């Protein structure tokens, strides 16, 4: 049974298109890894599914319901939760208050006690201000905050960013417990090996397009790495060695950068904000 379906999704920022006809689906309890270099559109895809960005074209369905036109807070109530890139906790709230913020009205296994059981280090620091916690503690709070909404779909954006490998290992050891609760996970991870090990299936994004997809166990690693870098032909052997995450080259095309010949930034089009969004 498919929980989340994304079909033919175009999205971006103002006049910069970041996603081109992206399609994917997530089955009940499944974990899918999203692989790609910086700027490939992984975070954009997650933010578009969560509702922070409104898609230009395409469908997003959750349990058969088209949610592409719904505002972000509504999607949260329907069961989409995100662990945003860079954690983005509410710094002036305590760790516990951060976890109590989600107001989705959804019941489920992830009570405060269950979350403290999952992350004992958060329980110990529950009354500390989130802004004063260590990076690992903050990441734990961010995951707990997302789970506290008892979501159907959990979007995890680079939980390993800026953390020591041992700390990241700790999070990935907890992943099976989270998966057992029935939530399906869309996981963005720079470290290809980690991503493949933790997921059932994997997708590779390159410059906003899905260039490769398959079962994590059966994917050809060399082909995946050349897809990751957008290399035209043979894989580079130096990049295939196992170990820490390969450092991707900085090759995306951010807005404002000269556009290579043959590729043009689309004309300015008014992109309606996803919903009244109040800047600060």
């Amino acid at each position: 049974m498919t929980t989340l379906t994304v079909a033919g999704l175009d999205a971006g920022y103002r006049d910069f298109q970041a996603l081109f006809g992206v399609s994917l689906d997530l089955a009940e309890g499944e974990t899918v890894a999203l692989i790609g270099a910086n700027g490939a559109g992984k975070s954009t895809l997650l933010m578009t599914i969560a509702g922070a960005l409104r898609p230009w074209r395409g469908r997003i369905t959750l349990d058969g319901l088209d949610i592409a036109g719904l505002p972000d807070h509504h999607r949260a109530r329907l069961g989409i939760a995100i662990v945003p890139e860079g954690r983005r906790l509410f710094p002036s709230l305590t760790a516990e208050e951060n976890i109590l913020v989600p107001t989705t009205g959804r019941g489920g296994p992830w009570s405060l006690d269950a979350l403290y059981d999952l992350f004992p280090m958060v329980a110990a620091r529950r009354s500390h201000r989130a802004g004063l916690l260590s990076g690992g503690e903050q990441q734990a709070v961010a995951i707990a905050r997302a789970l506290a909404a008892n979501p159907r779909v959990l979007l995890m954006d680079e939980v390993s960013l800026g953390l020591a490998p041992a700390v990241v290992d700790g999070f990935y050891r907890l992943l099976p417990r989270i998966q057992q609760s029935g939530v399906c996970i869309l996981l963005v991870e720079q470290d290809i090996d980690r991503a493949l090990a933790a997921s059932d299936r994997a997708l590779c994004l390159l410059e906003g397009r899905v260039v490769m997809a398959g079962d994590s166990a059966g994917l050809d690693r060399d082909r995946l790495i050349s897809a990751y870098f957008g290399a035209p032909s043979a894989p580079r052997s130096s990049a295939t060695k196992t170990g820490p995450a390969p450092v991707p080259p900085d090759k995306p095309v951010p807005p404002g950068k000269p556009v290579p010949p043959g590729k043009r930034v689309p004309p300015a089009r008014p992109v309606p904000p996803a919903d009244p969004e109040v800047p600060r």
Partner: protein
Amino acid sequence: MTMKRPGTPAPPAARPPAAGATAPVQVSRWSTAATVTTACAAVAVVLLALAPYVIGTNLTQPMVTLFLLAAMASLWNLLAGYAGMISFGQQAYLGIGAYALYLLGRAGISPFAAIPLAAAAAAVAAAGIFLILRRLSGGYFAVASWVVAECLFLYVTTQGWLGGGTGVGLQQLSSMVPVVREADTYWTALAVLVLCAGGGYLLVRSRFGLDSRATGGEPVAAAAVGVEVQRTRRLAYVLAAAGFGAIGAMLIISGLYIDPASVFNINYSADMLFMVVIGGLGTIEGPLIGALILFAAQQVFAQYGAWYLVGIGALAIAVVLLAPAGLWGMVSGRRGWSLLPVGYRVRSHRRSP
């Protein structure tokens, strides 16, 4: 909407110039429209200057009001539209200019000759007051500048030598022949407008203009690329204050009398805001259009009391929320017009081989 996929041939303009060829792109700061506009403006100024001989001085009195409104709008726009400083306290400098002119007149200096001195006095005061305001931004700056004006108002009302709360009159001009006085007032007001609007335009086109627009948009980023944010803000503030000082001097010259409650009135700030916002914040043309609209509203709807202010307030709110670029921005944005360009325009200028 449609995206050209890789493989589609790129249009010629996007292709980099071939090596050795003459640069196909021309950067210009001027346009034919600007030449025409400048010529028209020059003709208009000459015609306006001749007006007292043609239409007599009956109609010049309201024209003085219009000139001063337009000058105020241009200066307020220099602060808010370019340097990002919304001030609700520029009436402070109207008051300083007016009272400086009064004091200079008492010292025996001819009022018309004293206008530059009154402007200088306002500039000197602004340099001092800016020390209080320099670190502030946004609402803090807006309200703090307002409080400064209130302080000056409260101070003047307690000072007998400045006429206290009842105000002061300009004795010297009362003895002039009215027709001569009114014509002189008219020409001086026109000169003040030309200096404020034209000077503002030249300023915005200068290095200062680039700096101030950067400062107004993103002060932190502007500082990071080497713009001296504080110096730019201070220069804008002091120069605008000099202009307001001259306008304040004109207020007492045209009215022959000034009292603190009217010259330090927050309503001047309201007028400035309405003119600039309705016409188009951050454009050269917008404030002048806004001044015409406010002036027309004042003339047409004055008999309905303060209702026209209610209407103008509602219009300003609607413009801010629905068409933030103002009336001029709506026109120019749609057509790509700019009668008086302030930026750099890059134009493809490909010669046929």
